[in-house]
């Protein structure tokens, strides 16, 4: 069974004028079909307003489709009786760590999720410990979240989701507000969860460098999926990506420019080592 599947997914909302009258419908998601298998690492790219966050919010039923269907771990998200199952299967991490942390002590914040699921107290503590360990924040368990850096807060937020034992984690621009170090730590954590705990990961980001290790990349524009493929396939289309207001990693850009100027470099260079190796081969 697929972890996440959608068929003809549509999400529309009403547009209002200044007096509050409905002046038309806006389609944020337009006929999207998704097939995400358990254990995949999926990256979603798209400019501001392309519909990627709206799509993410469907994955744990914050929004439900106005047309078509979304299944999370086989459960139709539109059916109210599935709400808890859906939310337990797919955990969500948002952009701003300050909006996601509610408790005054790190370990209590992480325990909040499982507590709401009715997990017995003993087990809550086990889960808190194991999830804080998995994001590398165990030594901060008795600290106040206020005193943590952005990257650390974001890892606590991830631990809070991990403690609910989801099969899938959806991260909506988790690194947008972090400095380079914080970004690295959060990404390392996400990759570790994917590799060692086999959690399905859906990562939404504006940083092209964060996407190179994904299994599959989806590009959205105007609520539709306009490109998909491996990072190599996607990033070899530099000009097309620019049309969608996106970019490529700086190394890919460098390779692309060198090729335009006559160096016969292969397409879709993603990493520093690849470019250095390719240039050494040509020299």
């Amino acid at each position, binding site marked *: 069974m697929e972890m996440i599947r959608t068929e003809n997914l549509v999400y529309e909302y009403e547009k209002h004028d200044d007096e509050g009258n409905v002046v038309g419908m806006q389609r944020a998601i337009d006929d999207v079909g998704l097939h995400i298998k358990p254990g995949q690492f999926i990256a979603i790219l798209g400019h501001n307003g392309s519909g990627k966050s709206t799509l993410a919010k469907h994955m744990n039923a914050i929004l439900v489709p106005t047309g078509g269907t979304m299944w999370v771990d086989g459960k139709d998200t539109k059916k109210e009786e599935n709400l808890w199952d859906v939310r337990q299967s797919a955990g969500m991490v948002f952009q701003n760590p300050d909006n996601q942390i509610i408790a005054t002590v790190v370990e209590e914040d992480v325990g909040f999720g499982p507590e709401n699921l009715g997990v017995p107290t003993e087990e809550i503590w086990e889960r808190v410990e194991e999830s804080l360990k998995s994001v590398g924040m165990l030594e901060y368990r008795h600290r106040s979240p206020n005193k943590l850096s952005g990257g650390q807060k974001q890892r606590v937020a991830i631990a809070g989701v991990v403690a609910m034992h989801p099969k899938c984690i959806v991260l909506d621009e988790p690194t947008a*507000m972090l400095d380079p170090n914080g970004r690295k730590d959060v990404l390392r954590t996400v990759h570790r969860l994917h590799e060692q705990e086999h959690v399905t990961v859906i990562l939404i980001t504006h940083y092209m460098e964060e996407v190179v290790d994904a299994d599959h990349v989806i590009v959205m524009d105007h609520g539709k999926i306009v490109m998909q493929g491996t990072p190599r396939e996607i990033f070899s289309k530099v000009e097309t990506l620019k049309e969608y207001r996106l*970019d490529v990693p700086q190394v890919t850009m*460098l390779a692309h420019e060198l090729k335009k100027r006559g160096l016969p470099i292969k397409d879709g260079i993603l990493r520093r080592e690849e*470019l250095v190796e390719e240039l050494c081969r040509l020299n």
Partner: protein
Amino acid sequence: MSIKLEHINYIYSEGTAYEKAAIKDICLEIKEGEFIGIIGHTGSGKSTLIQHLNGILKATSGELYCNGKNIYEEGYPMKELRNYVGLVFQYPEHQLFEVDVMKDVCFGPKNQGISPEECEKRAREALELVGLKEKYYTRSPFDLSGGQKRRAAIAGVLAMHPQVLVLDEPTAGLDPKGRDDILEQISMLHKRTNMTVILVSHSMEDIAKYVDRIIVMNKGEVMYEGKPKEVFRHYKELEKIGLAAPQVTYVMKELKEKGIPVSDDATTVEEAVEEILRGMKGAVK
């Protein structure tokens, strides 16, 4: 015309158990027309530093001179400083509040005591500079997209005609095109009006591409200061404090190590392209 900081210290919650020195003994001179980049990890003192530049924070000790006048002297007209230095905070769109974009952009100059006609004129200029189309002027700022809101908020500061523009991570959360657009517009503005620009950013690539001089903050102190090439030469030390050189600089270093005859100090894609083509002439088809 310049801003000069002499031995500036700022201590949070002085005299309490939470006392913490946020910036220590900062000595800097910012000259008219410079484009300066400030980098440093979260908590390194960048934001504290820039809040001194228009007097939002007052140094615990040290002196700050604006055009030769000591702003901490009794009777210094703070309003003059605030008109001189415009500060765009992080996520400035959170500060939009008026009923339409035009009114929001006019708010700053209106408070400076400028006539309504002149306010509107300035607002139009500023909105044009940030590339916001006229059809948006009468819309509610809350109906704009993220990138458009950001531009409207920046226009609000530009309409006050500052001679020094300070931007704290102006591109955070924007898509790649939105990031490039905003930085290109700021760069154009800098060239056209010779406005001094101070840009705080986490993107080494952006900093390398736009600024003349980099200031590296670490633990409240200035760790390095110089041209991008000079500063990024210290990439190993930068890594230790959570920063790095731009990706292309690493490529150049590795190529040089492998024996390809290139200089390793390129910090932008353009420079790297020229340098690699020069060093690998024989391989070009």
